[in-house]
């Protein structure tokens, strides 16, 4: 039994010695492989030989010193063998520590494998010279094929669309992919130049955080866009809504007056009103006149909104005390053209003290050429493109047309409208 325990311990020690030696022999400058290893190996083999002699009954043939050694207590044998094991274990651990904390032939590879991104370097013809573990793992996700050429690998990346393990979700200028583990990787390619040589570098970066933040920002932008759209709509309609409320209030008022007029008339017709003399008759007549006028103007407002219109321009010219002459084909449905005439009318009165405004227009090249001039005497420095003319110019140019202001004597506008906007 004793020899079996010693044999088992000795075999284990051989194993430890082999492991420690294998590690040590990579670094020959250390003392262990050259000196201690042969001694430990010899002693362990010596123990094994004795145990085999005991096992096969030839122990009595051994010399007396060997027999005396074997007859020592078992803990002596075990202690020496276990000391060897502990020594080997310490050496292996120390070697691992040294390798981790010192530069050696594997340091570059270790460092590249430890970085969080995938790296691949190749010659200019695509021959891979260096690839780290992460890039190798990523390459296996995209394809089962073994890549020996960086150019082939890059072609695969840029043409990759979707598989069970990855899905293309480009959100930067470089290809990016959402993997099955919900991480997002972006691939970039660049050229590295040495003195007379060029290399290709492909870097895969984990952009999961960036992507998640971008998704969040996009959601927020979408929400804000919808709110912004509503704001724009409100701004656009503020005039309409304000007017609608005013109109409603005044229409209620007009209808009240109509009701009042009907009620009083009915009372008169039924003979309920005594002494229906002249003042009372005038009063109810005035009530009806005003009510009918209000209705009539209400209808006019609807018609004017529908038409545009030139009639309004003539009417305004008459109100302002300036004669308006219009010749040729005027783009009547073009709101900017109407505004241009109106603006010219105001400027002619304010700056040129004009009495008449002439508008000549004709069709040309699919558009309208409009010439507006007055009979006034403008001061050249009096006509500068302020808010009104600037607004007209913007409107004209937005339609693809052009505008020129001249001040020979009065104010002149030359406008070309590319097409008639209805």
């Amino acid at each position, binding site marked *: 039994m004793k020899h079996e325990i010693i044999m088992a311990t000795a075999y284990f020690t051989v194993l430890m010695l082999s492991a420690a030696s294998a590690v040590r022999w990579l670094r020959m400058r250390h003392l262990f492989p050259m000196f201690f290893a042969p001694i430990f190996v010899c002693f362990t083999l010596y123990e094994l030989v004795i145990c085999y002699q005991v096992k096969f009954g030839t122990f009595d043939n051994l010399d007396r010193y060997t027999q005396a050694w074997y007859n020592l207590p078992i803990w002596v044998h075990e202690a020496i063998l276990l000391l060897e094991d502990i020594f080997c274990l310490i050496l292996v651990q120390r070697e691992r520590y040294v390798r981790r904390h010192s530069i050696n032939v594997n340091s570059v590879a270790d460092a590249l494998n430890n970085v969080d991104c995938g790296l691949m370097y190749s010659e200019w013809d695509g021959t891979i010279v260096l690839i780290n573990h992460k890039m190798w793992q990523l390459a296996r996700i995209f394809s089962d094929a073994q890549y020996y050429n960086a150019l082939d690998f890059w072609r695969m990346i840029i043409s990759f669309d979707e598989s069970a393990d990855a899905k293309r979700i480009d959100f930067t200028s470089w290809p990016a992919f959402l993997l099955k583990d919900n991480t997002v990787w972006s691939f970039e390619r660049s050229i590295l130049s040495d003195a007379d040589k060029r290399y290709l570098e492909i870097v895969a970066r984990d952009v999961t955080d960036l992507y998640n933040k971008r998704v969040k920002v996009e959601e927020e932008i979408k929400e*804000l866009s919808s*709110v*912004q759209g*509503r*704001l724009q709509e*409100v*701004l656009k309609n*503020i*005039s309409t*809504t*304000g*007017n609608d*409320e*005013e*109109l409603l*209030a*005044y*229409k*209620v*008022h*007009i209808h009240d007056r109509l009701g009042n007029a009907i009620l009083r008339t009915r009372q008169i017709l039924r003979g309920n009103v005594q002494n229906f003399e002249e003042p009372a008759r005038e009063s109810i007549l*005035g009530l009806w006149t*005003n009510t009918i*006028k*209000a209705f009539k*103007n*209400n209808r*006019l*407002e609807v018609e*004017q909104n529908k038409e545009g219109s030139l009639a309004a321009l003539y009417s*305004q010219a008459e*109100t*302002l*005390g*300036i004669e308006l002459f219009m010749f040729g084909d005027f783009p009547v449905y073009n709101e900017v053209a109407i*505004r241009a005439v*109106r603006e010219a*009318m*105001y400027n002619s*009165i*304010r700056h040129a003290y004009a009495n008449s405004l002439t508008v000549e227009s004709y069709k040309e090249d699919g558009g309208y050429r409009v010439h507006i001039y007055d009979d006034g005497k403008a001061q050249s420095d009096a006509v500068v493109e302020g808010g*009104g003319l600037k607004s007209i110019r913007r409107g004209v140019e937005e339609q693809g047309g052009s505008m020129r202001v001249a001040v020979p004597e009065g104010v002149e506008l030359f406008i070309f409208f590319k097409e008639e906007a209805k």
Partner: protein
Amino acid sequence: MTRVLIVDDSVTVRTLFETIIEGSEQYSLAGTLENAKAALPFCMRSPVDLILMDVYTKDRENGLEAAREIKKEFPDIKIIISTSLPEESFLEKAKAAGCESFWYKEVGELGLLDIMNRTMRGESVYPDTTPTVSVGLAKSVEFTPMEMKVLRELCNGKLNKDIAKELCMSENTVKFHINNMLQKAGYSNRYQLAIDAVEQKLIVPGF
């Protein structure tokens, strides 16, 4: 007879004002316009004593701006600003433009005639407060003057840094005022606040 010019983009409103003026013995109608910009050229051609000027007229022309120009050229013409918009800056702007009176449009003849009479007697008639409107959970009067200034710039689409530059304050102060308004109104973001303020016509962007 006092010659009155009516400037309002609504035919119905103009008609009602015309009816009021024609029905009175003291006033006569000088003319009616739908665009505030036409008011100055009109005054250059026709004698006018009093103008009833709307703020928001046809083609987004600003009645307050037109009033300022008219006052510059014709300081004797009296101007009554009439509006239904509760935007509180209109009162200050009307005063700055030199307008004699300010009237929130009402349905009723006596209100307007009363204002016109008092204005022509030399009085300056301005309402003490603007109509109160609700912005979210808050009443418009709950906003401080500085908050209103920030809100006005916000409704004009400006960013914090632009608002800070415009109002000569730090961006943090702008954020502080906006957060205060959000808390009062019960909104979670500035866009909701701005939209409601514009919808309620508490602020009229561009005016």
